[in-house]
């Protein structure tokens, strides 16, 4: 018999009162049309009242501001006249060389829907122009090394906030704005390693295996984009003014690996590398070789185990003394795997996926990047967008992951060429005439 239900410890969670009157409850909802079709939606105007000054480079910062731009914010990307580093990063046609100028493929993806201007902030006049832009901005994004912003602009973040009370500054950095390792050198390999993602992946007898690409940069960018929205929310509904938001990529990395950090304290057992298995436990979560590649099996519940046995033509295994319960399946995991592995090796991914799907068994054919691009599900949803990039030509890029019921999208605009919108922004927006613009150009300021 279960004991008495436990009672809560610690501070009670808050209940709000009184309620705000919901005058809208009587409102009509005739605006409401929902069509989640393939023709919807790519770009929105949800944030059309938000102006962003974007001093970021590389991946995390540009990805954060990309998300805001995709939702309709006006993002003005400021680069030095020689262009930010990611323009020279690959991939480009003919290999991932560093030597390419105007832009690499990743830059073209990360900077869509933004306006691009150049400013050499070593010049006083350029700094004045930046401050003029901040005057009307809601958000300033930067991912320089901590302390650099102040050197570049001549004002500390606090001074800037003092001067532009509606502005919030979103700072993204490797380790945060303080701490003993604030200025330590780092790259993706080290970030993942230190953040705990790497240690449990790979063969027990070999070196731990790092995740591919720059995932942690994107995750840091997501936290920054959310932080920006929260800062706007706080400004609009509570504080009446902006603030400084400090996002550390290392902490973003650690925050997303809760399986280890919290679970370790509960169980006292630290996770180790277990090869093809994801975890050792009362389930079979494993990457399996099949006839034409690999498949990922995620068999957790009794029902899923039943489906697996049936799919293998071995329904009697459900009643097998070794596998009857989840706990027994953990104890006899090797024996179970020895039955499952040969079955997978004899079949191809398409068969396994189809048969698994029929039985609601989470089982996926591990696709290559090329197969992701051609996946029917994504085609049916019109997920990839074809972009005509002025430098790279036609490329397919990931579309917005979210669809909003109240929007029709506009097409995505390609990333700006270096200084593409100098005339538009400095001329039309800030009223600089042609003579002044060409003076600035000659002085190398833009």
């Amino acid at each position, binding site marked *: 018999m279960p004991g008495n239900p436990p009672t809560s410890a610690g501070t009670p969670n808050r209940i709000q009162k009184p309620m705000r009157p919901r005058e809208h409850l009587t409102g009509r909802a005739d605006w409401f049309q929902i069509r989640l079709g393939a023709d919807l939606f790519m770009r929105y105007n949800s944030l059309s009242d938000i102006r962003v000054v974007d001093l970021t480079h590389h991946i995390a910062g540009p990805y954060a501001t990309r998300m805001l731009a995709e939702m309709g914010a006006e993002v003005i990307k400021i680069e030095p006249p020689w262009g930010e580093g990611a323009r020279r990063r690959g991939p480009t046609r003919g290999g991932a060389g560093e030597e390419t100028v105007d832009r690499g493929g990743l830059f073209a993806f990360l900077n869509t829907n933004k306006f691009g201007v150049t400013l050499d902030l070593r010049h006083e006049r350029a700094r004045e122009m930046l401050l003029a832009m901040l005057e009307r901005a809601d958000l300033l994004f930067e991912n320089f090394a901590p302390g650099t912003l102040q050197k570049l602009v001549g004002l500390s973040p606090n001074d800037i906030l003092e001067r532009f009370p509606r502005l919030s500054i979103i700072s993204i950095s490797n380790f945060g704005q303080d701490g003993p390792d604030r200025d330590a050198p780092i790259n993706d390999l080290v970030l993942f390693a230190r953040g705990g993602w790497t240690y449990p992946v790979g063969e027990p007898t070999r070196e731990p295996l790092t995740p591919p690409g720059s995932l942690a940069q*994107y995750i840091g960018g997501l936290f920054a984009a959310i932080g920006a929205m929260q800062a706007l929310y706080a400004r609009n509904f509570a*504080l009446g003014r902006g603030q400084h938001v400090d996002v550390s990529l290392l902490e973003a990395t650690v925050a997303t690996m809760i399986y280890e950090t919290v679970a370790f304290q509960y169980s006292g057992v630290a996770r180790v590398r277990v090869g093809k298995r994801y975890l050792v436990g009362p389930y079979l979560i494993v990457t399996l070789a099949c006839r034409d590649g690999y498949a990922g099996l995620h068999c957790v519940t009794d029902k899923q185990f039943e489906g697996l046995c049936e799919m293998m033509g071995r329904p009697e295994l459900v009643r097998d003394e070794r596998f009857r319960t989840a706990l027994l399946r953990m104890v006899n995991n090797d024996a179970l795997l020895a039955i499952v592995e040969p079955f997978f090796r004899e079949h191809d991914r398409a068969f396994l996926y189809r048969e698994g799907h029929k039985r609601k068994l989470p089982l996926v054919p591990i696709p290559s990047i090329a197969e992701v691009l051609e996946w029917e599900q994504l085609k049916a*949803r019109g997920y990839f967008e074809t972009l005509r990039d002025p430098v790279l030509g036609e490329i397919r890029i990931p579309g917005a992951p*979210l669809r909003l019921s109240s929007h029709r999208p506009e097409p995505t605009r390609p990333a700006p060429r270096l200084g593409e919108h100098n005339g538009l922004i400095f001329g039309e927006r800030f009223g600089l005439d042609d003579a002044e613009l060409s003076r600035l150009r000659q002085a190398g300021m833009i």
Partner: protein
Amino acid sequence: MSTATHERLRVVDLSMGWAGPLVGAMLTEMGAEVIKIEDTRHFDWWRGSLSMGPPEEHPIERSAVFNTVNRGKLGVTLNLADPRGVEVLKRLAVTADVLIENYSAGVMERLGLSYRVLSELNPRLVMISMPSFGAEGPERDARGYGNTVEAMAGVTGLTGYHDGGQPYTLSNALGDPVGGLNGMFAVMVALHERERTGRGQWIELAQVEAAIPLMAEALLDYQLNGKIPPPRGNRHPRYAPHGIYRCAGEDNWIAVGVESEAQWRALLGALGLEELAADPRFATAEARKRNEDALDDALSRAFGSREVEEIARRLIGAGVPAGQVNSAPAVMADEQIQARGFFVPVERAVVGTHLYPGAVARFSQTPLETDRPAPLLGEHNETVLREVLGMSDAEIEALERAGIIGTRPLE
């Protein structure tokens, strides 16, 4: 963000697992009142994750992961198979700003809780649905998990050692946190827009579509060059050395990635390997990349006798991108993580006090609140029904007798 205005946000959270609940958890950090709805028959399945034990030990209250991503929420149970349960939920949704759900496609419609219905009752409602692969298309019914989403986004296929072998699943069910973070962003965007238009909206977020942008580089490489990039392991396409090397002791490793001539020299200096600078195999960046196997051998020998923390410190001090490959306890002991106080202690019934990840975004004026515990099953039934819906004791008792609400799991 403990400001009166924030507390006006009310959230009804029907989601389970990690991705959906993360959205609600992040909203609690802003001071929102988040009401997590479970059913005593079908409680959040994540309560069973990494948690086992006899019933008298309340195993469903002992899941480290459930207790992490449901912090700060109010726990309410409702039997949604009963129309009276659905009715209570509807009444809560009418008072809410946000509703979060990640049921399979079609479940909300069957319950009579589609966005069409709810938005007629409450046009300001922002509702987010988070199907793994999308609410339409041939895979709309596929049950997804963080790991399967990760695979279908192309991540797994690129996770492998540089010298071949099988692909590996990452350590943290990537599809879940990435789906949840995108969901949180979307909700904040919709709340922002609502103040301008006066109306909420329905957000559909396919988790796999949230994860694919993280693979943009590989997707573009393939398109621009026509070749499927192979897994690179710990290596870098241009730089060497770039790898993970065993240090002294049981299972201690250091990650080192050298990207410049200065870093290369600093590495050799720190390891006392200056003689390698003159070795023609390693004389230039191109040569080091060409002879990477030999280079890795030499470095493995040099690191093998080193104490990992000491050598990591020395390399960082010398300006080399390097760091210990942290296991879970090492992450929590990491100097930088500790100095910024990233983990926060939270006391919770049944399990006691543990450290949980704190706020990633540090706000100078309105710090996020991360120190409230996850609810026990049905812990706040009475409080919520009484204070939010104004129910009488008799009404609440009637619901309890009818099994609409409860605090014990039922099979």
